[in-house]
């Protein structure tokens, strides 16, 4: 096993005229539940999509489980579970079939897969709906299914891009419990969010990013203490003079 679960070294990612990530470095340890916190457009998705091999770095590099994301993407894909920000699923398949298909892509042995899907579905509270076609699911159900699709390979490293955005409180609780349980089993989890309470509630450490720059890094408690703030929201406000969330 590599020393760190994830390293990001002087990473820059540009799209034509937009610099989404600029000279960002991070080191994420095994078993960490690591939050990437920032407003919309901060570069969170760009960061995780570089880690999950969909995007190539413009400059700098990143490794996942010691594998370079740019030069050894196949190895990276073998150890990660990816929950994209926009849940992608086959509308004509049932929830069960969607999850199973992803397990098959990872070549999870058949018997293991069946039992694992059953257990995951139960844990996330979808057992009553799992044989319905995905096109009939509510937004919250889709997000839960999408999360199970990401984790069905029981990955060492989970990359979850805003898994709870727009979820009702109940679904969000279910997903939080699920993420905590991942951590308790020693998994490394990268979680992007723009909900400061989510980061505060779940994460061992958070990286606060804004406009592609890393502006603060530490455990929620450390950061609150350091900035003499009430919560992460205030930390962000102190750092940038901006609200983290658009006013609701």
């Amino acid at each position, binding site marked *: 096993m590599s020393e760190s679960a994830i390293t990001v070294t002087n990473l820059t990612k540009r799209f034509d005229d937009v610099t989404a990530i600029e000279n960002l470095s991070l080191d994420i340890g095994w078993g960490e539940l690591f939050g990437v916190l920032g407003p919309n457009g901060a570069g969170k998705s760009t960061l995780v999509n570089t880690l999950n091999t969909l995007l190539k770095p413009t400059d700098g590099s990143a490794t996942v489980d010691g594998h370079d994301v740019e030069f050894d993407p*196949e190895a990276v894909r073998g150890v990660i579970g*990816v929950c*994209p920000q926009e849940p992608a*699923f086959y509308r004509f398949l049932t929830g069960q079939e969607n999850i199973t298909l992803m397990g098959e*892509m990872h070549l999870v042995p058949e018997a293991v897969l069946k039992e694992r899907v059953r257990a995951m579905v139960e844990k996330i509270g979808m057992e009553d709906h799992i044989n319905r076609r995905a096109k009939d699911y509510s937004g919250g159900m889709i997000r839960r299914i999408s999360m199970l699709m990401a984790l069905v390979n029981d990955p060492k490293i989970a990359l979850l891009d805003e898994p709870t955005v727009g979820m009702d409180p109940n679904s969000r609780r279910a997903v939080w419990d699920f993420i905590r349980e991942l951590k308790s089993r020693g998994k490394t989890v990268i979680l992007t969010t723009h909900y400061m309470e989510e980061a505060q509630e779940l994460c061992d450490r958070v990286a606060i990013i804004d406009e592609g720059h890393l502006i603060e890094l530490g455990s929620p408690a450390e950061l609150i203490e350091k900035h003499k703030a009430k919560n992460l929201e205030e930390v962000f406000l102190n750092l940038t003079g901006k609200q983290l969330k658009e006013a609701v």
Partner: protein
Amino acid sequence: MNARRIIALTKKELRKTTREPAVLFLVILFPITVTFVFGLAFGGIGGGGTTSFDVGLLNLDATSPQADWSLAFVDNLTTSDVFVMHAFADNDSGHSALLQGNLDAFIIIPEGFGDSVASYYGSPFDPSAWTNSTIELYVDSGSLMAVSAIPPLVQEALMKAIFGNDAMAIGLPVEIGSPGLVESSTFTQWDFMAPGMFAFASIFLTMIVAQTITGERDEGLLKRLKTTPASSADYMISQTASYMVIAALQVALVLTTSFAIGYRPGTGVAGVVFTFVIAVAFSLVAVGFGLISATLCKSAEAATGVSFIFIMPQMFLGTFMPLGGAAEAISKFVPTKYVTEAITTLFLRGAPITTPVIWINLAIVSLAGLLLVAVGTVLFERYGSH
């Protein structure tokens, strides 16, 4: 590349076919319906009831001293089961009857026809001594059946008139035997159309492939797959395999439906197996065109439109639409033409499975399919997958 992944993705694709009503319609119900409706409309029922053609006749040589020749020719036409003859007194009325669809064909025997035949018998071995004449034959170009069946039957009647029933008896070195033509009198129009149904059914797979791939791209599913160990080869092979299965299913559906309404192809098990093989090979063409459509388009809706650029020519130039002139020449570039030609050779002409032309057709379709899938894959990976 991994078999388990390919099978899983293929299963996914086949599930879509059965679960998405639009796909189900286009892939399964559409071929059944078209076969059923066309089969009934064009005479499938009863396994080939005899067709007859209304043929107009203007004999301009009826009063010449050598009128016997033309009368013998007319006799042969009249006694044939297939022709119902109608005499016309002038050119214009015959042509107008043909234009109005009252006739399937119009024959004009020229003045001097009898002299012409007589001159042949005067010096059979000296063509320079013959007085040539031309029988004018106008066939309703709107009727595929008429276009294909009438000219050879008229030719046959003419030969009989000139040489008699037994050409050998007059000592000609060449025998005119045309047993196939005699049989053609029991064909229905459907017999001519049915071979084209197989390619017709599969052409629309291009549209499904284009829609599927653009849809999966737009919904982020291709990206999602790319974050797993599945390779693009797994994906492309599964797409291809799915549509091979579907094309085979379509052959079974078209065969079963047309069989149910009385169609009996003039071939055996080997010919039927060959039909499955060439249809499966053709599905590669459909997938290739689908990939190219997907590359060219930003959305599933646009891909549907663009796929018709590939579908239309194949539908009109390569299935059961009658062709002539330029269309015939262009059809050489249309893969469906070769599918239809091979199946026509087997089903209509009753050619044996060893006939070289069908294997050449299969080779052309397979090569075109492999090439199009390769080109489509490269184009899509490079320009279309983002």
